[in-house]
């Protein structure tokens, strides 16, 4: 994403807004918020599945951004930097909610009955046709928290397993395994949803 794209405002590019925000310019803060709020909020909402939590975390992510903005040197795209910051805010929030003696990874491990069912050997139906995005978004919301986090970070937000492992404090193997389970669970949910729709007709 090019750094210097236009913001909603006369002639103010993102790069200019960042420079002015470093000087404490209030309008630039607001302009940067307007530009990035949707993506940050959506990320927080997908990761937490809770509107109120997502709003609080969006607020915290932007506040941390503004506190740190003077240290942004432009080595990466601003949106990448902000995005990573928001992910860390959410993960830190989840760590605090976990029991202290249980790691984030362990606390997010779904219960036995929440995990995907084995799908071996028997005939099966393919998810025919395109996957409706609304249904997919709902399905993601209904995932157990641990699966949802990994799935959102990898498949929705595009982080690699080594990055997720570093952020979550887990192994790369575990990240791959959890992602697979998340996709399997989504497959189940989507199939059930389609079956219900078909039955309802």
């Amino acid at each position, binding site marked *: 994403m090019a750094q210097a794209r236009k913001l909603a405002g006369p002639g103010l590019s993102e790069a200019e807004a960042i420079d002015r925000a470093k000087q404490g310019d209030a309008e630039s803060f607001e302009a940067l918020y307007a530009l990035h709020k949707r993506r940050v909020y959506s990320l927080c909402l997908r990761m937490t599945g809770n509107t109120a939590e997502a709003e609080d975390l969006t607020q915290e992510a932007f506040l941390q951004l503004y506190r740190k903005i003077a240290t942004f040197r432009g080595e990466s795209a601003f949106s990448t930097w902000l995005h990573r910051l928001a992910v860390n805010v959410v993960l830190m929030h989840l760590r*605090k909610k976990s029991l*202290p003696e249980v790691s984030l990874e362990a606390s997010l491990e779904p219960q036995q009955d929440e995990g995907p069912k084995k799908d071996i050997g028997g005939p099966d139906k393919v998810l025919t046709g395109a996957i409706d995005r609304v249904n997919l978004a709902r399905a993601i919301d209904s995932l157990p928290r641990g699966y949802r986090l990994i799935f959102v970070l990898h498949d929705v937000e595009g982080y690699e397993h080594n990055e997720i492992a570093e952020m979550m404090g887990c192994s790369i193997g575990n990240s791959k395994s959890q992602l697979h389970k998340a996709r399997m669970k989504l497959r189940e949910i989507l199939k059930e949803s389609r079956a219900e729709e078909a039955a309802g007709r």
Partner: protein
Amino acid sequence: MPSMCNGVTWSLVAAGLLTVAAFAADKHKECRYNVAPGARVTITNESGPVDVKGAAGRQVVIAATTHSDSVEMDCVQAGNRIQATTHVLQHSDARDSRVEYEVLAPPDTSVTVHAPSGPITAEKLRADLTLEGDAAQVEVRNVSNAHVHVRTISGPVSLGNISNGHVEITSLSGDVRLDAVSGPKVSVNTAKGSIRYNGDFGEGGDYMLVNHSGNIEVTLPATASVDLTARSIAGSVENDFPLQQPSHPTFVPSPGRSFAGTSNSAASSVQLRSFSGKICVKKQ
């Protein structure tokens, strides 16, 4: 008696739990990056020590220990540049915001450290060093073929075994000590801090040691090859080192306030200047 024993027992248990809780709050983070020759590393740490060492191999390793959730460390690599920064997430006291850094880097890595409280240590490096701390104690050892820049407000500075590079130290009130420091250009400026130099002013360099009201003490061997001038405008000067007294067209000695002379082949230029402090030159 039993109740006293119980009280002691519970105190010990409580102390043990607190210790466990304290260590449980510690978090270690390590970043490792492969770098090409000539890499640059920048560390910014508001509170806590930064220790940098040259090490074999082509990897930069940055290890940080935090003690609370109110701070976090970010590392980022862009090409051959690496930046590690401590971010304060919530306002907290100095103890909670303290982060301890240990950095290993290939010796040809340029290093910049901003650590207001420090201490900052750097050793076994062969590339440019820029170290800044407000009250940080700064120590640099075994650096060669590199420029060394140090700036503090009140932090003391100690350099040892530095050679073949430009050295520039500025401190307002920190004391500066140089042992076996030589190079083409060595410059020390303090206001109130004292300056102590122990070495031979080698390599045919230009040495300038200047302060306002602190003392300047220089100890050099008889083999030192120097063209030395010393002046204190409103303080005093003492010389216990044998100097030849050639005429200096631009420098006229004044008893008790200034002196000048050469030793051996006068290869290095040494200027000692204090506004109101005492300048002492001694033989090792």
